[in-house]
């Protein structure tokens, strides 16, 4: 199989038509590749490539790259945002639900919106947010108290504010919404609280909810039978990472997370659809077209909340996902068939595959009272950090974690709004220490072409650019540029804090910039 390679190199001079007054239309979102100076959606395009056609910063000159400015949010906690870049302005979010707009030339703030969060919100894993979406004169944002909001892109003022669901039951929003046509689409977080997950679409003008897809089928719906008794009501299956969109078929590809309780399968016998599943939804109606479940009846917290990357290979329309369970899956999005699933890290939970090529769980990988060691560990071979697909090299790059954990059961009754794990995991002090590597995977075969080893696992996303470069961060605080073809480190900068975000690129006045959030600061880099 050959992966289509885009050989067209964009010249900065041709694309720099920035106009500070132009509004983002849905047509611009569909055609985002035509304006690489901007970064209009979470992953940079609807396909989830996190690839920039900018090539001014390249293999030959990246060693001279310098910091251009730093914006300090003043917020503590994990800083997970991917900024949007729109005609000279950056829009981003910080911990504790702050949203801000910056002058992309200087990093100077234009406005700041700070959500007044209740004291009893239920974020499982920090007061985090990963970014905004934009359409027209509005910026869209989902909050930790489960509201969906439209802010005025010029001032940060609230235009509409809708409560999606009661946050006290454990629901929250942490992801960047996705705008498709006139809809603002986002999935809910809360797989640690016994929620019933959903994906919502709101009218961008009014905030009226246009559809909701429950990720756990109700009585009478197909898939409901994959849950034991009433377990479906508190079965989790959140949808906390931004999906991708195929304009040709008007389908959303949205992945879901773990069934609840996350590490204990007793009481929810069955496959637990649609947990840990790639959903293909009609974007206009939210109706399910088809699905592919990665981990059935999960007991290891292996959310499938990794960006599903659309890759076109000749006539074949594919979707690739480096899954938290340690397998790299390629699914044909026309036939809905799995092409292959290959490990891209150490796995011990599966020795066999079913007739369709899907990895099957070993009996001995089940959590036990006294604990059983399983690889990957609870954080997975990767987690939510964005991968990138580089159409020039034809390679898929992802930060992989090498980590095994002991999984132990701990029966726990469900209480509304209270943490609901049903089990625990912890590191084995006899096991090899955790480490990580950025891996370049050939999506045609699943084979690893090269790796760049990190001393400890990285939580950073990855960006590829037409300059032949891959950008990533690490937990030691470095922001790093690698040769996309060889994995050789070409440049690095010590930001002073672990990187929990994904890089993005934009251009202004003929100059390319790359931005990354780290610690409490947003950094922009460029050539001198």
């Amino acid at each position, binding site marked *: 199989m050959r992966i289509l390679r885009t050989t067209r190199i964009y010249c900065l001079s041709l694309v720099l038509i920035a106009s500070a007054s132009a509004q983002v239309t849905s047509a611009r979102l569909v055609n985002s590749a035509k304006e690489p100076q901007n970064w209009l959606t979470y992953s940079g395009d609807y396909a989830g490539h996190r690839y920039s056609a900018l090539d001014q910063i390249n293999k030959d000159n990246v060693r001279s790259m310098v910091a251009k400015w730093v914006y300090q949010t003043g917020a503590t906690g994990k800083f997970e945002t991917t900024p949007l870049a729109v005609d000279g302005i950056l829009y981003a979010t910080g911990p504790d639900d702050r949203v801000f707009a910056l002058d992309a030339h200087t990093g100077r703030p234009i406005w700041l919106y700070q959500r007044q969060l209740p004291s009893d919100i239920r974020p499982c894993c920090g007061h985090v947010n990963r970014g905004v979406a934009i359409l027209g004169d509005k910026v869209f944002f989902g909050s930790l108290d489960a509201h969906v909001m439209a802010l005025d892109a010029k001032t940060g003022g609230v235009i509409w504010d809708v409560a999606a669901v009661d946050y006290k039951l454990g629901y929250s929003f942490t992801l960047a919404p996705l705008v498709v046509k006139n809809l603002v689409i986002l999935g809910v977080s809360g797989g640690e*609280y016994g929620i019933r997950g959903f994906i919502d679409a709101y009218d961008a003008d009014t905030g009226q909810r246009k559809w909701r897809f429950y990720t756990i089928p109700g009585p009478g719906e197909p898939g409901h039978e994959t849950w034991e008794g009433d377990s479906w009501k508190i079965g989790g299956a959140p949808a906390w990472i931004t999906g991708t969109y195929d304009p040709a078929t008007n389908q959303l590809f949205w992945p879901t997370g773990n069934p609840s309780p996350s590490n204990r399968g007793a009481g929810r016998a069955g496959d637990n659809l649609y947990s840990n599943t790639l959903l293909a939804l009609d974007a206009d109606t939210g109706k399910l077209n088809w699905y592919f479940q990665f981990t059935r009846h999960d007991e290891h917290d292996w959310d499938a909340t990794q960006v599903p990357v659309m890759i076109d290979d000749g006539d074949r329309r594919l979707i690739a996902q480096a899954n938290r369970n340690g397998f790299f899956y390629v699914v044909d999005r026309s036939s809905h068939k799995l092409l292959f699933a290959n490990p891209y890290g150490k796995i011990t939970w599966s020795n066999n595959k079913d007739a369709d090529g899907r990895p099957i769980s070993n009996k001995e990988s089940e959590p036990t009272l006294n604990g059983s060691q399983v690889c990957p560990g609870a954080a997975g071979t990767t987690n939510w950090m964005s991968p990138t697909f580089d159409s020039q090299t034809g390679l898929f790059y992802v930060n992989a974690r090498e980590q095994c954990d002991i999984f132990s059961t*701990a029966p726990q009754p469900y209480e509304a709004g209270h*943490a609901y794990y049903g089990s625990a995991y*912890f590191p084995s002090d006899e096991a090899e*220490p955790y480490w990580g590597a950025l891996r370049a995977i050939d999506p045609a075969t699943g084979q690893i072409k090269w790796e760049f080893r990190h001393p400890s696992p990285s939580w950073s996303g990855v960006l590829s650019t037409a300059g032949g470069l891959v950008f990533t961060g*690490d937990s030691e605080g*470095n922001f790093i540029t690698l040769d996309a073809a060889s994995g050789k480190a070409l440049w*690095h900068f010590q930001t002073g804090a672990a990187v929990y975000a994904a890089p993005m690129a934009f251009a202004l006045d003929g100059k390319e910039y790359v931005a990354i959030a780290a610690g409490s600061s947003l950094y922009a880099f460029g050539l001198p």
Partner: protein
Amino acid sequence: MRALAIVVLLAAPVLAQDHNPYADNAKMAKLGEFQFRINCAFCHGLGARGGGRGPDLTRAYKRHGNSDADLFNTINNGVPGTAMPTNGTTGQGVGMTNEEIWQVITYLRSVQVKAPAKPLGDAAHGRALFYGDANCSGCHMVQGKGGRLGPNLTVVGGIRTPDYIVDSVRNPSRRLAQGLLEATKEFPQEYETVTVVTADGKEIKGVVMNEDSFSVQLMDAGEHIYLLEKHGLRSFAKTRTSMMPAYDTSLLSDKDLQDIVAYLISVGAK
């Protein structure tokens, strides 16, 4: 005034009580064991016998107090300046109720090891060995006195089981000690051994103080600190074989080792 009194009365049941309402209740201890696994075992280990970074909790001695009220306060409010978080602020657990905290305390009481009637060893002799024939102090500091190459052992007698300390002396490479907890890292740096050859051909062997992909900070046996950029090195080799020699019984008898452990406990669990 009346309104204030009502507020105080309403608030009372929510506050921590001084005494565990579930004391010696085996069923509550079992529920507490499950809560412990979910919320505490990540750091304190399965069975509460200490993990990579959390102290052993099976001992009667606890650094921050062992009364019911002390334990409740430590669990609910955390320990400032340490990795012990306030209840509900860790990604592992998302807030235990008061009842669940008492269940955990009931569980901890059920696994608490009774202190031996007699001290395990001779702490005074252990101190003499530590600073003398056994030469522990060549690399380890206790209360400001001793070497710097290995971990400071001032508090180790209060946070690790005697078995753990014995195993660390007999088999130092089995589990490398963990040191400084960096705010930017999930896990603290370990005392790994590194051997480098510099551009001018000098070989340096030492303990990693810190490392990233591009640089390493290390200390050699002479306590010299080297700050090195990896690209300038001829070679860089790191192992998990500790620089500490394995003290077998020919180097240190079981009795002498017990005396050293008794010394460390006398200091660390004071």
